[in-house]
């Protein structure tokens, strides 16, 4: 997520500087933040063309909504168009080779998919935000979409949440209050985050790579499987420390500037099933896909093809949602497998819960769920499943099976 480079040094400078500029409650706090956001995006762009494409990708949805936002039937057209452009810009290899598309840009835009999430939220919420009297101006919109704290990999805020928080203190002059304890807590969290990302996760990453590269050298299935498990174990802890460390930096640093950012992790590896896991790992992504993929799809399934068949609709909607989310994570076949296994895990977990409740009855089911042995075993099984399925993110696991 974060690599040691001039860009990450620049990012570190920004998070040190920002609190001095953004804690001051002035009328121009939003403009100051905007300048910083544009500066970060400019530094992150490798060429003028990339900057222009990024600017169009960010500004166009605002302009379209501003002039045509009251037409409800425009939303599906716009979102479909944006997803198509996204697939092109994100460089999905199999789409390119299938359709023989020319590659016009060689660069990848930083934070592209996270821009998409926020833009879709803005589009979907536009009418109700307007109704509720939110000011839908370009400065707030740009600050929301470009927010440099959450630029790279979230957490994914919602427009309403961002604006409510940003203007929480009104516009009277003076400093935004912070207690000494809060300040030290935030600083502590940022330092912890840096240690997690640059020390712990960096070490785990190199070990995981070492074991993955050695996989083909093992003769015999058992040896190879054992080596794969060690690799999976190291990789899943690498993902946790890297991503949650990154979130610690972001949430702590934004806190120093008087901004509150949604938590993204809640001890995910203690989950007792895959459904619970996705409520505790990358929480803001789970909530986003719940609201904008799962819910509309589920509602549609319930009302049109599978009329009132709750369990069937729920299972299909869950599976498709996680398959799509998996494919969103990356552009290779491995991410399709990743989505497939997450979807499968979620459907099995939710069906098992429903069935179990029927078999055991309410009282017995409660006893079962609170049984310490059951809790321990289900935690280990869930964590093991996540470990194995997480190997598809970041490693060409499928190539181990295909080109043997």
């Amino acid at each position, binding site marked *: 997520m974060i690599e040691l480079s001039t860009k990450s040094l620049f990012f570190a400078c920004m998070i040190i500087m920002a609190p001095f500029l953004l804690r001051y409650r002035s009328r121009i706090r939003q403009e100051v933040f905007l300048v910083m956001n544009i500066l970060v995006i400019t530094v992150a762009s490798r060429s003028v063309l990339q900057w222009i494409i990024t600017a169009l990708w960010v500004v166009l949805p605002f302009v379209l909504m501003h002039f045509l936002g009251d037409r409800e039937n425009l939303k599906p057209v716009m979102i479909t168009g944006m997803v198509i452009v996204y697939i092109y810009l994100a460089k999905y290899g199999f789409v390119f080779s299938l359709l023989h598309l020319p590659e016009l840009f060689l660069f990848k835009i930083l934070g592209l998919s996270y821009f998409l999430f926020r833009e879709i939220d803005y589009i*979907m*919420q536009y009418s*109700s935000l307007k109704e509720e009297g939110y000011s839908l101006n370009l400065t707030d919109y740009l600050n929301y979409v470009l927010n440099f704290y959450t630029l790279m990999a979230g957490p994914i805020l919602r427009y309403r949440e961002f604006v409510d928080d940003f203007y929480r203190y009104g516009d009277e002059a003076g400093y935004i209050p912070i207690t000494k304890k809060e300040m030290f807590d935030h600083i502590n969290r940022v330092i912890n985050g840096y240690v997690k990302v640059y020390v712990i996760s960096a070490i785990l990453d190199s070990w995981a790579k070492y074991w993955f590269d050695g996989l083909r050298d093992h003769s015999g299935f058992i040896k190879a499987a054992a080596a794969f498990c060690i690799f999976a174990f190291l990789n899943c802890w690498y993902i946790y420390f890297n991503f949650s460390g990154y979130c610690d930096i972001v949430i702590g640093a934004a806190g120093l500037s008087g901004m509150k950012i949604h938590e993204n992790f809640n001890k995910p590896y203690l989950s007792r099933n895959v*459904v619970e896991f996705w*409520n505790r790992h990358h929480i803001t992504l789970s909530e986003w896909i*719940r*609201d904008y993929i*799962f*819910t509309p799809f*589920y*509602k549609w399934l*319930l*009302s049109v093809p599978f009329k*009132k068949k*709750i369990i069937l*609709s*729920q299972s299909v909607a*869950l599976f498709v949602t996680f398959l799509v989310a998996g494919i969103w994570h990356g552009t290779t076949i491995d991410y399709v497998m990743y989505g497939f296994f997450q979807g499968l895990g979620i459907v099995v977990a*939710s069906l098992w819960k429903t069935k179990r*409740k*029927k078999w055991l009855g*309410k009282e017995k089911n409660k006893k079962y769920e609170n049984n310490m042995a059951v809790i321990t075993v289900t935690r280990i099984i869930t964590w093991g499943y996540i470990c194995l399925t997480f190997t598809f993110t970041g490693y060409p696991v499928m190539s181990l099976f295909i080109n043997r």
Partner: protein
Amino acid sequence: MSTQERLQEVFRDVFDDEEIIIGNETTADDIEGWDSLSHVALIVAVQDEFDIKFSIVETSALKNVGDFIKLIDNKIEGK
């Protein structure tokens, strides 16, 4: 039947539990199985029962069953 009674029937149907009794103060914590997944099924069932439509914002802002009943009544009046 009052809105609350009709809503109670929907709850019993969706959560598959004939013993559910709802009141204004009932929240998701009080009802076994009322999580973000079944919430969607509940919303769709309520929409069908009362022949109304909700937006995402309306249904995610609900704090308890009392809020829900108020929202349903407002919708029915506004039809």
